């Protein structure tokens, strides 16, 4: 975990970032608040450069809520990662979460989505 975030009290993020070949696999275990989301975004972008990743897979299967801020952050992250040369896929959006996102009018533009980890990896591999 990078320590270059002076302001944040150092609570570990309820998310794990694993590297698998050229890809980063991010698994979010519990709902993240806004500050944690921004931290995740920063951490990830930093890792993309450091590890020279080609792809990011974000697994949100454990979440039963995804608010508009989270959706926006993920979309931004996808765009930023693309600027640094990595493709992003979000996997495991639950049916209810999908419905809520649509009802709230949240679009996740530029972000590829896939059913689950397996599908996501397949997409990253192609």
């Amino acid at each position, binding site marked *: 975990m990078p320590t270059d975030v002076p302001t944040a009290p150092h609570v570990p993020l309820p998310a794990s970032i694993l590297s698998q070949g050229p890809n980063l696999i991010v698994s979010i275990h519990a709902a993240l608040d806004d500050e944690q989301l921004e931290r995740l975004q920063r951490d990830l972008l930093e890792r993309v450069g450091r590890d020279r990743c080609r792809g990011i897979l974000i697994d949100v299967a454990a979440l039963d809520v995804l608010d508009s801020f989270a959706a926006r952050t993920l979309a931004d992250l996808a765009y930023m990662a693309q600027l640094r040369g990595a493709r992003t896929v979000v996997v495991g959006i*639950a049916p209810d979460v999908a419905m809520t996102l*649509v009802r709230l009018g949240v679009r996740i533009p530029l972000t590829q989505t896939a*059913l689950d980890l397996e599908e996501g990896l397949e997409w990253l591999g192609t």
Partner: protein
Amino acid sequence: MTDETSTPTGAEGDRGDELLLPELVAHLRDHRTQLRQQWAERITDAHLLSSMTNQEVFSEATSVYDNYVEVLETGSVKALQHYARDLSERIIPRGVETHEVIGIVLLLRDVLARSLFEKYRDDFELLNRVLDAYEPAANRIANTVAVSFVEQRERVIRDQQDALLELSTPVLQVRERLLILPIIGVLDQTRAQQLTEQLLHGIRAHRAKLVVIDVTGVPDMDENVANSLVDTVTASRLMGADVIITGLSSEIAQTLVTIGVDLSKMHTVGDLQGGIEEAERQLGFRVSKVPDAD
């Protein structure tokens, strides 16, 4: 016609009104067999409850009668409510109509009132007071039975609606990772919502990659419905499944263009067959005809 020994007509004028109801109840109890018989006959004469046998009518009549007297006695409609609901549950499947149920209760009210007229015909003033006590209670009973019946009926209708809704949107797998969702009938907001929900769960259960939504059976589409269709597609994409919409009729196509709904981001194919073929192509299936073996 049967003059009770316990109620000599002469002294009744002085009795308090609170005693009238118990007296009434006692009268109805004493003449139970005869009044009940009268009532059952009138039901048959009026051709009510024609879907039930005489035997059944008689036995239900007995229960209703007893409940009726009990309500008069206790003033509480709780037990009657319960019975009426129960009765409705039994007779609704047999096609008994609302007017029949209300009809029989009003008949009973009538039969009992007539017997009261008979009994108190010599003392008009007393008869008036008896009726004052009887009428509100009788009205309440009629009300309770009718309301219970209608409520029960509505519940049955609601259940059927739910069942229909469930049936009306099957999510079917036709190939590995390919689902079809044929929509038949009028789409409204509720149904569109429910359909989306079912589709999304279907996508997860079947691990679908492509969904063909066929709207050949949808006669009409307005802006709301079109937008919810767009939402369905968006939600499916969030779950990693692409959607092909097929069977948009020329009328619907014209309507959509006229009201300015933008479906250009959606993948549409003319008919269901075309949609499935397109989906198969995208999934990498190749369907070819086997040359005749013989």
